[in-house]
Every structure is written in C-alpha cells, then in structure tokens.
C-alpha cells in the first residue's frame, strides 16, 4: 500500500498554472487541513466547489461567521412533468457540512480572502435526470445525500487492499493512510497520494457504471465550469471529490495565449432541462452531528463525526498537525471516564492510563503513526469494560459512542433564506413557550379547557404530530383517536427539538407556509386516499384535534362518499362511534360542526341499519364489538337530536331477531335494548332465557352467553322484575352440578356488568329466596387488630430471615 501511494507524480500547486485541483473526501479533517494550506500556497482568485449550483446564493449563508456547523443544504425536486417516471414523485437530498468539511473550509477561506467561491455541479434536478433509476442519487432505501464518497469505497480492489493491509474496512484504511499519515505529509505529497488512490479506484470502476450513475455527465458539466472560470480568473482552485479529479483532467486541455494560459473544455456541452423554481429548490438547514453520523444511515459520511470534530479542533488550535489524533484519543478517553463516573461506573484514572497505553500500543502494532478512532474503540473495550462484554457492562462503550458521534446542533445566520414554515414553527413555539434552544427532552402540561392558549398549543402539537415531524408526543391526556380516557381535561406532552424536526418541516414546506396550512393540505390529500369509513373517521378525529373548523365541511363531503361506498359493518360502526364522540365533545373542544356531524351521523346510521339484520351470525370474536355497536346506536338515538331514529333502530333490531339465527350474546343484548325501548319485550326475554337454560348440551352453554348479552344492555331488568330473578334462580337450581360448573366462567362474565353494590343487593335477594340472610353469605372470622399487627410483624421477620439465607 505504501508503495502504491507514493507511485504517481501529480500536478503541483504551481502558481503559474491556471487551475489547481484539490481532491477531497467529505468531512475529512486531513483534507480540510491540507486544503487550507493549499489555498495559502496557491493563492487562487476563485474557488470552485463540487456542489449543485442552484445553491449558489446560499454560499454566503454557509460561510457567514454567525452560521455554526453542522448545517446542511436541503435540495428538493418535484417531478411534476413526470420526467423521471409516471409516478411523478418528489425527490430530496441533503448535503451536510461540518467544521471539518473541506467544502465548508473552502467557502470560509474564500470569504476571508474576499474571492468568489462557487458551486460548480449540475443543479440537483439535473443530476437526477441524468441518473439511471436505482443508481447514484436515485438509489432506493438509503437516506439520500449528495455526497458521493461511495465511489471511493467500493469495488473488489478496495476489499483486497483492506485484506492485505489487515484493516477492517474502507474507513479504517482511509484513517490510517490519509487521515493520520496525511498529517505527516506536506500538502503537495498529500495531494499526490490522494490522486494516486483516487486514480486507482477510478480505474477499477467500469465506465458504463459511471455513465449510468450520472457521474460522467456531472464531470462534463464541472469541466465546463472550470474552463469558463479559467477564462475569467488567473488562478482557479477546483475542490472536488477525489474520484472526479482524474475525470476532469481528461476533459480539459491547457491553451496558451498572450494574456496567459487557460483551460479549454474538450467534451460535448451539457444541455440542461429548463426546470422552474417550482420544480426544484434548495434551503439551508441547521443540522446535527447525530444526523451526520454514517452509523445513522447517512451512507456517505465518515463515521463518528464527533471524534473527527475533536481532531479538527486540535488542528485549529495547534500549529503542528502531528499528534492531533493522539490528543483527540486521549481527550475522548478522559471524557468517557468522567461521564462513566458520573453514571456510577467504576472507571478510574488508572483505567484511562491503561486504555491510552493500549491505544498507543495498538497504533504501533498496526503501523500507524498515532492511535485513531479504531484504536480508541479497541482501547475502551479492553480497559473500560469489566467482565464479559454484555449489555450490563458495556456502558462505557455506549458513552464513548455518544461522544464520538457528537451532540452539536448547528445554527444558521439570522437572515438566512428559509422556508416560511420554519419561521412559523419558531414563532408558534415562542408563542406557546416551547423551548427549542435545547436538544434535550422537555415536557409541557396543557389545561385544555381552562386556557384558550393551551387548547391552541395542543392543536399546534397535534398538527406537528400529524406532519410526522417527531417533535412532540402526547404522554398523558385524552386519547380520542382510540376513544380512550375521553374525560381527561389535561394533556401532558413531551417534546424534543432536533434538526430532523426542521428537515421534516422543510419536507412539507411546499404544502404550506405555516404549520397549520401544511397540516391541512396533508390532511386533504390523505382524505382523498382513505378507503374505509373507519380510516376517514379517524382522519376526521385528527382534524378535530388539530382544530380545523372550516376543513370539517370539506372532509365531511369526502367522508359522506366513503360511507356510501363502505359495506363493512364494523368499519361503519367504528366511524359512527368516532363521529358520535366528536359530536359530544365539540362544545368542549370549541369546535362547531353540529350540522355537518349530525348529517354524517344520520347517513352512517342509515347504512348501519341496512346491514344490521345480517349481523346475526357474526364470528364469536366479533360478537362483543357487535354488541357494543348496538348499545352505542341505542344510546345515541336517546339524544334529543336523534330521537326520531329510535323507532327505526328498534325495527332493525326486530328484523335481526326475526332472522332466527342470532348469536346468543347478541340476542341477549338486542333483547335488552328492545326492552328498554318498549317494556312489551319482557315476555320474549323470559321465553328466550328459559329456552336457553332448559336446553341441553351446547345450547345450555349458550345460556350464559345470552345472559351476558342481556345484562350488558339491560341489567336493571333483574331488579325491576322480580319474576326474572325467580326464573334464573329456578333454572340454575335445576341444573346438574356438572353443567353448572361448565357454565360458571361465562356466568361470572355476565355478572361482571353489575356494580359491586348491585351484586350485593342481588345476592341478598337470591339468598332470601332460599331463606338465608344476606349477612350470612360473606361471613368470615373476625381478626382483632392486635392479632393482625402481630401477624404482620411475624411475617416481616420471617421474610427478613429468609432474605439472609438467600
């Protein structure tokens, strides 16, 4: 490997040349360090940087002293004309910058020197259009980034180098030969070494593949830009991913004229599609180290950005680059030890000393000038983990991992171009007192119905939740979506600000200028997709929680259509329950949609009535849901606004019973409801109950299910009609003991609908039938308080003694 890297002569930073090339790997401190030196040595008049050129206006924002890395450029492209496929999808990608990103260093240096710095790559949309499906930036299943370092780290060639050099991965190879050794080389030698490696990896990449990935097209465009700049400026510095440098050199020819030398582009000119600002755009974003970590699915970054940030800080602080890695390793070990001690882990200073000597020893053994990330991790594993490495002992490793990842969150200069939705988000957060300066988790309690502002804050948080920003999560409070805890009047939310929230908001920024607008438009588009009334009603509930008054109408129209098309009884009844809940809560939540909801409930009701008579033979596991639906229908028809519907419901119940084949539970429940509607059904109930109880075999088992259904809807029958109690008592008394025991579990369930007081009363009455007083039913031994106290003491003593044994 060493020989290989020293083997090629390369263009120097010769000031007489019109263009100097600086090959980089993204986020590499060594590249950034040498780039700084190269700029000092070459003194360019203009710096061209690999990056989609439609972000040109944002270079000022990125290089501004008030902007704090990590930041990212967020590119989007909307395939409105279907140039990429019939689906007309949206595409997006990130281009992150850390302090140690050479591109950001180039921008900052250019600003310092007051020379122009320009992005020279194709605009993002054009890159997409020049890339074949499922290759390059259009690869599926990955978090899309603009960086293309993957070009350097693939291929059999690399695998063989790693095997031969005894290294685990490309990242370790890179660190050994370019990061650590790179700091021991002068800038010229470093560039030469980069070019050799990049040249080799390029030789090992088939040209067809590069064409498919759009790589060649981009290089043609960049070469054109370099040639153009070399006409305008005396010395141009081109900063590109190392893989492209050999490609660019091929496309450019040196020409000399009286004024001096310049470069001429020798390839075919690149033709651009005319994409509008609507179709593609770019925004700057505050980013986070966490998001930039390669281990978090960010495919093209270096892993552990926090560690390399330390190295970079060391390089900025000290004149001498040598030793920067060793110092960073020591610092991370010390910090890990300190944090571990705070978490009550027994890591001593001596452990840190052993770890450092391990890291240094490994570096010597592995032929590295200084220990790096891999030696740091190995040292912590060896010296900090006590005992077998398991979840209970690897806390120090997790702490180190966190430190190596870094916690910094970036910040953009005040007047940076940002989508309006971000301003709205920040303004609203400010208004509701939500803290977004800290990256730690926060909590807020909202008194929904006492303070108007709290209700508004709750709506805002629901909107953010609906937009999948991952910002806030409701911890306590009414869960209307699942129809649980409806009576809670307080909500507790936890929330945490991160760059992911911002990027999620930018993702939806085209849907609206404010969080509310974006949520509304998302809701509309989702409502168009909802296929069942269950889904549509859930969406309606979400809209209700987000406080979209005027939207309810439109949504209602859509829901009406869905209801008409839905033939699923359960989906309809669930929708009905949702709407009913909203109808009841609207006053409380200060949403006024009486007329729309009434209408919707009416049509849903009709639909259910149609389906109800066919529900007699419902599956056993759905029987309970069906019973609940019937009760819910009955209850709502008791409300003043829906009283007219009750006879219709009773008629439908009647039709259901007439079918003759009704599950016993449902039959009991429906009969109970009908009894509530009209006392005349009493006889029918007696008949059915005695029928069930007097039958044989399996039918007898059904009797308990029948009673359960009956008690579910009309348990008062037992109290109001003594006759019923006699009947049950008599029938139960006639049962064989075995049959009774078989029935018992189901009977227990049936009686569980009664309150404890009612059971007590019922038991008293039943006991009276057999001439026994109520008080004798539950009589037990009375224990004196003194005895009880002694017993407790004895128990505690015995427990303590047994603990000693164990």
């Amino acid at each position, binding site marked *: 490997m060493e020989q290989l890297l020293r083997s090629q002569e390369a263009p120097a930073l010769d000031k007489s040349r019109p263009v100097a090339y600086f090959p980089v790997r993204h986020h590499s401190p060594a590249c950034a360090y040498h780039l700084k030196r190269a700029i000092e040595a070459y003194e360019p008049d203009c710096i061209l940087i690999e990056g989609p050129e439609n972000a040109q206006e944002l270079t000022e924002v990125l290089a501004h002293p008030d902007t704090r890395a990590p930041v990212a450029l967020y590119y989007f492209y909307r395939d409105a004309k279907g140039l990429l496929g019939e689906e007309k999808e949206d595409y997006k990608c990130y281009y992150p910058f850390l302090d140690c990103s050479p591109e950001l260093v180039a921008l900052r240096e250019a600003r310092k020197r007051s020379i122009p710095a320009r992005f020279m790559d194709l605009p993002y949309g054009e890159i997409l259009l020049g890339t074949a499906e499922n290759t390059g930036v259009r690869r599926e299943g990955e978090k899309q980034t603009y960086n293309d370092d993957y070009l350097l780290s693939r291929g059999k060639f690399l695998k063989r180098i790693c095997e031969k050099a005894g290294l*685990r991965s490309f990242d370790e190879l890179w660190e050994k030969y370019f990061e650590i050794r790179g700091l021991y080389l002068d800038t010229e030698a470093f560039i030469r070494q980069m070019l050799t490696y990049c040249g080799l990896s390029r030789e090992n990449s088939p040209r067809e593949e590069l064409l498919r990935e759009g790589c060649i097209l981009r290089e043609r465009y960049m070469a054109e830009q370099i040639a153009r700049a070399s006409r305008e400026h005396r010395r141009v510095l081109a900063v590109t991913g190392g893989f492209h440098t050999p490609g660019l050199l091929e496309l450019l020819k040196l020409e000399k004229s009286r004024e001096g030398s310049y470069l001429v582009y020798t390839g075919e000119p690149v033709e651009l599609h005319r994409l509008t600002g609507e179709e593609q755009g770019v925004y700057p974003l505050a980013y986070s180290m966490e998001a930039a970590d390669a281990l978090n699915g960010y495919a093209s970054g270096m892993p552990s950005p926090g560690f390399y940030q330390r190295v970079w800080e060391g390089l900025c602080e000290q004149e001498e680059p040598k030793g920067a890695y060793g110092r960073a390793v020591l610092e991370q070990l010390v910090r890990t030890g300190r944090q571990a001690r705070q978490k009550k882990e027994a890591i001593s200073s001596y452990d840190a000393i*052993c770890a450092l000597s*391990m890291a240094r020893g490994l570096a*010597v*053994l592995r032929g590295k000038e200084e220990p790096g990330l*891999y030696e740091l991790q190995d040292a912590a594993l060896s*010296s900090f983990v*006590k*005992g077998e490495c398991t979840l209970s002992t690897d806390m120090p490793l997790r702490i180190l991992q966190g430190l190596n990842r870094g916690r910094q969150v970036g910040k953009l200069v005040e007047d940076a171009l940002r989508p309006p939705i971000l301003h709205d988000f920040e303004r609203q957060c400010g208004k509701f007192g939500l803290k977004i300066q800290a990256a730690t988790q926060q909590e807020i309690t909202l008194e929904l119905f006492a303070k108007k502002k709290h209700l508004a804050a709750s709506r805002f948080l629901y909107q953010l939740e609906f937009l999948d920003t991952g910002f806030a999560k409701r911890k306590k409070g009414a869960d209307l979506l699942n129809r649980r805890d409806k009576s809670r009047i307080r909500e507790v939310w936890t929330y945490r600000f991160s760059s992911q929230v911002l990027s999620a908001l930018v993702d939806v920024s085209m849907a609206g200028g404010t969080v509310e607008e974006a949520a509304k438009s998302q809701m509309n588009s989702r409502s168009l997709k909802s296929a069942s009334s269950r889904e549509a009603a859930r969406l309606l509930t979400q809209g209700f929680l987000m406080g979209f008054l005027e939207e309810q109408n439109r949504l209602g129209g859509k829901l009406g259509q869905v209801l008409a098309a839905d033939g699923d009884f359960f989906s309809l009844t669930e929708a009905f329950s949702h709407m009913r809940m909203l109808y009841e809560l609207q006053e409380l939540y200060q949403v006024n949609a009486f007329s729309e909801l009434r209408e919707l409930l009416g049509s849903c009701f009709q639909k259910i009535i149609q389906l109800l008579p066919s529900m007699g033979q419902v599956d056993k596991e759905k029987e309970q849901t069906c019973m609940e639906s019937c009760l819910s229908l009955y209850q709502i028809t008791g409300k003043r606004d829906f009283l007219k519907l009750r006879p219709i419901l009773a008629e439908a119940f009647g039709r259901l019973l007439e079918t003759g084949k009704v599950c016993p539970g449902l039959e009991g429940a429906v009969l109970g409801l009908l009894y509530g509607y009209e006392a005349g059904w009493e006889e029918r109930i007696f008949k059915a109950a005695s029928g069930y109880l007097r039958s044989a075999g399996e039918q007898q088992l059904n009797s308990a299910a029948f009673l359960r259904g009956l008690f579910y809807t009309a348990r008062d029958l037992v109290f109001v009609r003594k006759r019923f109690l006699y009947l049950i008592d008599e029938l139960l008394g006639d049962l064989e003991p075995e049959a009774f025991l078989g029935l018992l579990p189901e009977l227990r369930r049936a009686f569980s609908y009664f309150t404890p007081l009612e059971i007590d009363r019922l038991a008293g009455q039943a006991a009276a039938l057999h001439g026994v007083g109520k008080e004798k039913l539950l009589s037990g031994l009375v224990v004196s308080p003194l005895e009880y106290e002694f017993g407790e003491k004895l128990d505690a003593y015995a427990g303590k003694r047994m603990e000693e044994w164990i």
Partner: protein
Amino acid sequence: MERVVEIKPPVEVRYARELRALRALDTGKRPRNWKMSPQAVRTFLLGSHKPLIWEGEEIPVRKKYLGNDALVERCIITLAGNRGLMLVGEPGTAKTMLSELLSAAISGTSTNTIQGTAGTTEDMIKYSWNYALLLAKGPVREALVPSPLYVGMEQGILTRFEEITRTPAEIQDSLISVLSDKVLHVPELGEEGLLFAKAGFNVIGTANTRDKGVNEMSSALKRRFNFETVMPVRDVALEKQIIINEVEALALENQISMPVDEDVAELLASTYHELREGVSSMGHRIDKPNAVMSTAEAVSVYYQTMMTAYYYGDSRMDLGCLVENLVGAVQKENQEDLERLRSYFQTVVRDKGGKEGGLWNSYYEARKHLR
C-alpha cells in the same frame, strides 16, 4: 527406546519451525524478555500472506486464530502492558487455544499453566513445600515447590490460568496483590523471601461464563485485568473453515489418511450455526438447545464420524453416524434438546433437502438416528 507420541503436543512443539523462523527473521522491537516482537506474535497467530524464507526453506505461516483480528491485537498489547489478560466467553470459543498460542509465541512455552478447579488452593497458585526436604533442610529455596505463577515471575514468562472462575473467589483473590505489586512474599524464607517478577511476566486467564459451577470474580481482581470477550464464530464459511483446519490437524497427528469432506463440514457448520442462532438460513425460527453449540463440539462430532468411517467403514463420511454423534453432542443437559434437534430436522433439514437436494436430502433421511 520408542519415541513417545503425545496425543496433543504443546503449541510450541507443533509449530516449532514457524516459531524459530519468526524469531530469526524478526526485526521489530521486543518488549523485555519476549521471544519475539508484537508484530511477529501477530503474524504467528494471524498468518502471513507470503511464506517465510529461512535457512533456504519456505515456511508458510497459516492463520491459526480465525475470527476477530482486532481482538488478537488487543490481547498482544495487553500482555505487553501492566495488566493481565482475561479471556471470557462461552465454552468452545477457542479461548484456551488463543492463550496457548500467545504464550508459545511470547514466552516460548505454553505449559506454564495453573488449571483452575473448585479444589484449587492458594498454595497451588503461589508455592508449596517438598516436605521431605523441608524437614531435612528447613525452609530453603530448594525445598520450595514453585507454582506456575512463581515460575512465571521468576523467569519472566507468561503464566496461564485456565478456568479461573472455577476456583473459589477467595482463592482467585490471592492473585490481586501479585498482579498489582508484581512481588510474591514467601515469609518462610526470611530475608530472601521476596520474589520480584522479572520483566516479561504476565497472566493470561480464561473463564467460562455459561457453564454451571463457576464463581463470580471480585471487582478488585477484575480491575487488574483487561477483559476480552471471545464470541462464537458468527460466519458459517469461517466456521466451516475452522472445522476443516482442526480436523485436518487432528487427522494428521493421529495418522488418519482420509481427506476432509468439505460438503459435510459445511453441512455441520450450518447445523451448528443455525441451532446456536435460533434461525435458519431460510428464515425458520427454531428453538435453541440448552447445550452449548460450540465450534469445538462441531469439530469433535466431525472427527468422531471420520474415525468411525476410517476404522470401521469405507473411509467415506456416513451421515447416519454423523447424526448419531450429533445427538451425543447435543443431548447433554436434557431430553428437550433432542426434541429441539428433531424439530430442526423436521423443518429446516427437510426444507433444505427439498430445495437443495443432494447431501441435505441424505441428511434428512438420516433423521432415524435421532434417538
């Protein structure tokens, strides 16, 4: 006199040529009293791409420890430092082999070993007396019987402590002061009773974590060691390679001239891998047996089958016999493990037989030996 053939010669004898060549050609810096530099130790364990040329001979250095290279490097550096090395992990993960290889390379001997048991006493760790000499001459160095730890300190070589967690915790703790002060007191010898450890001394301990009857280590002792957790091999191809290498070496030592059947080795490696992980390569979820499914066990299952084929059969691996040996290896703890193995055959092996046919089919047919 007839030469005694050892069943298992120590590592330094088995690889004597490699070790000599590595020492002779070693140009790296050696820690004091080490027989070779850390780089050469690494080469001895992890192999070299090119054979060594020494005294006109080509000496290939094969990779002896397959698995985690970084772990080997950490072990070497630990041994050059102030702390002892403790290899922990499930049984059969080649901890002992690793410690033997390290000792042979660093100190030239792998036999300076304490074998820990529940009956290990403090004098077995430190020193004891030859009572005849003690009575005759009184407490003099001559009458003292040094333990491997004593020898290690005296000569500046590594002491291996096998199965350290099998010894009672208070006995383990007698190592604490020796490891931190690097000095052993022998009060009986009076003024001469201080043994200072010579450079090059260190301790390699091995400890099982899953076995029954192991004791916890005190945290004071833990602090004197760097721990390395040796994980079971997670890669089927690598496990297959280990089986082949080990069986070949065993066959050579025992003069069994029969080639290793790579397909059978792969079959066995997949079986062990899938039963250990609880999921098959085709995605079946299977119950893991309670017995330890180590690669060392797989090697012994293969080797037993091979011997049966060599002595009683036609020198071809018989899958029926393999299954019988597999039952012996798996069914150690309880009857349920056999049921688990059976259900593995009835799901995974059956489906693989259906899909891949060939050897897997014959393997499935051999299920009748599962009893």
